[in-house]
């Protein structure tokens, strides 16, 4: 079935620490994954994406890891800053030919100064 869920609803870290946000998905046919950041009162903001033919992708201060064996996705944020405080969603494209994204429930990241 289609189920994208998150292991932890909240995560609190100290400024400067690295953050890891996790996501589990259940559809082994999913072939495209995106991480979004949502600040209060705003829409989901694209952070980074990864296709299923990759297991790692790096951006500026962010890394996404994909483990297809256990159907797990993670977002690593290096040197977390107060401006990183937000709700983070993973989303998956459910199957080849489908355009819709299936979103997880979200993890709220709080960065303490």
């Amino acid at each position: 079935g289609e189920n994208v869920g998150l292991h932890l609803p909240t995560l609190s870290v100290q400024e400067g620490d690295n953050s890891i946000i996790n996501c589990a998905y259940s559809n082994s046919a999913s072939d495209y994954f995106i991480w979004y950041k949502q600040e209060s009162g705003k829409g989901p903001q694209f952070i980074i994406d990864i296709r299923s033919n990759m297991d790692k992708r790096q951006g500026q201060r962010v890394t996404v890891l994909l483990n297809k064996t256990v159907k797990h996705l993670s977002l690593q944020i290096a040197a977390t800053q107060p401006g990183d405080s937000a709700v983070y969603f993973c989303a998956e494209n459910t199957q080849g030919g489908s355009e819709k994204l299936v979103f997880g429930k979200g993890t709220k990241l709080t960065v303490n100064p």
Partner: protein
Amino acid sequence: EPEVTQTPSHQVTQMGQEVILRCVPISNHLYFYWYRQILGQKVEFLVSFYNNEISEKSEIFDDQFSVERPDGSNFTLKIRSTKLEDSAMYFCASSENSINQPQHFGDGTRLSIL
């Protein structure tokens, strides 16, 4: 950086009334989407639109809903005969292509049905 814009930011409507939510997608994008997020819940797909027609829709998107691209820049979601449970944030998104392309979201319209 180009962005998706949505108006109004907040819409309050009486139950049973019709409402139109408006979006201006990113100008060179070809695929357009509507999602909704009920308070405290996941973002849910409603519909995708390409080449002036619906390309995919969810079971939520029933006859109460319709979408339109009335001109070269706007993309609208119409909800007829609104119900209390239609209260949610409605997000518009657009992408350059359909498959395996990031969808870029607007900041949403908060729809409150009284």
